């Protein structure tokens, strides 16, 4: 682990990625300490200000400090990313193993389910669900989980299938080893590396999706700050001030770049074979 970290810091892009990610994660976690203002506190007197010593990134139409909102918005982005990718990983591993080790008909059904999800434009699916269920952070997370499960499920299924046909697995099963044991001892350790790489490369996509849905007003409910909702404010105020757009986009762009650079150098270090299926 430490060795991998050391090797990443030797690559310029990996190093940049690591620094960006660590910086943004820390500032989001410490938002309560760093943020100079309450992110939802209204100060109409201070509305639509440009950057100043008091307001590093200016204020929005309700006089809220954009720098503080951006910091708290980072919490939302990271929360969505971690919860949804964690849940998708868990469910994906489960379904992948079932598909790989279960009977043929079950495998076919699961694969059909995966393929159908993948052929749908994610944003359309997200919009339809949000419109039906109503906008909330939970809905966004649910949509992301459903649409990313196939990414992980496929990897696990392939690995399970290849392990399944191994002679020593057949021997172990004959000797009465339980399926759970085989999956836990032989399959899981083999898929963890690729899964981690895939997950770290999915984080930027997920963060962008959350921002996009919040931008469309289908993510977090106001006044909760999210990078997407800050951008939405910026869009409505575009003829008055550029600062909300700049404030909302900088962390979004930096963190997607950071995770992508980090994910790519991780992949190149650990498993260059994965390069083909970017």
């Amino acid at each position, binding site marked *: 682990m430490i060795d991998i970290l050391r090797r990443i810091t030797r690559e310029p892009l990996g190093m940049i990625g690591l620094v960006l990610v660590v910086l943004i994660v820390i500032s989001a976690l410490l938002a309560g300490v760093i943020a100079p203002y309450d992110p939802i506190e209204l100060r109409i007197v201070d509305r639509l200000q440009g950057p100043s010593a008091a307001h590093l990134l200016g204020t929005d139409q309700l006089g809220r400090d954009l720098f503080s909102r951006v910091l708290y918005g980072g919490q939302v982005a990271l929360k969505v990313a971690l919860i949804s990718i964690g849940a998708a990983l868990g469910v994906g591993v489960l379904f992948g193993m079932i598909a790989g080790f279960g009977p043929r008909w079950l495998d076919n059904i699961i694969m059909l389910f995966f393929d159908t999800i993948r052929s749908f434009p994610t944003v359309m699916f997200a*919009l339809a669900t949000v419109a039906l269920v109503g906008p909330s952070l939970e809905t966004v997370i649910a949509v992301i989980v459903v649409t990313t499960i196939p990414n992980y499920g496929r990897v696990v299924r392939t690995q399970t299938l290849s392990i399944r046909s191994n002679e020593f697995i057949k021997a172990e099963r004959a000797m009465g080893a339980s399926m759970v044991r085989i999956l836990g001892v032989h399959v899981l350790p083999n898929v963890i590396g690729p899964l981690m790489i895939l997950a770290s490369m999915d984080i930027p996509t997920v963060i962008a999706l959350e921002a*996009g849905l919040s931008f469309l007003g289908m993510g977090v409910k106001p006044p909760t700050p999210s990078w997407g909702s800050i951008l939405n404010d*910026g869009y409505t105020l575009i003829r008055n001030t550029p600062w909300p757009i700049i404030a909302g986009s900088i962390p979004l762009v930096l963190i997607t770049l950071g995770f992508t650079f980090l994910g790519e150098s991780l992949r190149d270090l650990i498993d260059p074979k994965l390069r083909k299926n970017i």
Partner: protein
Amino acid sequence: MLFYLIKRLALGVVIVMLAVTLLFCMIHLVPGDPARILLGPRATPELIAGMSARMGLDQPLPIQILLFFGNLFRGDLGMDVITNRPVADMVFGQLPYTLWLIFTAIGFAMVIGIPLGCYSALHRNTLIDRVTGVLSVACITVPAFVVALYSLLIFAVTLNWFPAVGAGEQGNFWDQVRHIVLPALAIGLSWIGYLARLVRASMLEVMGENHIRTARAYGLPERVVVFRYALKLAVLPTVTVIGVGMGFLLSAALFTEIVFARPGIGKLIFDSITTRNYPVVMGSVLVSTVLFVISTTLSDLVNAWLDPRIRSSL
């Protein structure tokens, strides 16, 4: 060949039907009566019942689905419950805007991305290659709506080079061109990076193949080797990726159409979803799924046209 096309289209019909059925089930499963939500809290029960009937929601679910496909077969996508216009008219009225936007964006991405990828592959590990590599990743990761916001902010609002809103005057070609530049840039930017990376990788692979060594061993000039012998093979994966990428393109178009207040199928879906105008949602999702099916089939056909090996296996 003909058999392949028939098989492909049959599969497409199955996917479209599956998608529509799923959507019907979702509407059915969701708590709350769509008619009540559409009409608001002060609507009378008679009004709600009438609206339900107009949306076809008073029938049992299987009948609703059968009715939908029955009508579809006659080219009828239902009626918009708010404006009372045929959904088919609305969808096909908006579709050309989205198609033009997508084609312009992808054309623009190909014109820049493919040569960039080739150049990088042929000048591997030079400064330009490395810079292109990093910029490609940056282009891919920045979401389309952020690019749209910035281009709106910089080129339309601040510099006033291009118009900010709409698709341009009907029949005025030059005006429409001016209106499409920024939205196409917003969608195309990430594709420039994507195509550059893809073409670089496949070009490197092709240049290492034996037949390129043969072409060089026969003394063919390097530009012939690159442009006639390698490039055609190197762009083959691009065609597939664009065909499958229709879903991403439609998603990006949705955001872009909203940011630039541009008519199009994405904006239609968004507007009808926010007003819970179900017949319009159905119609536009149906059409975009059909679009997806057509584009993947089309990319297969283009691949077959470019690659004789695929052609003879069809």
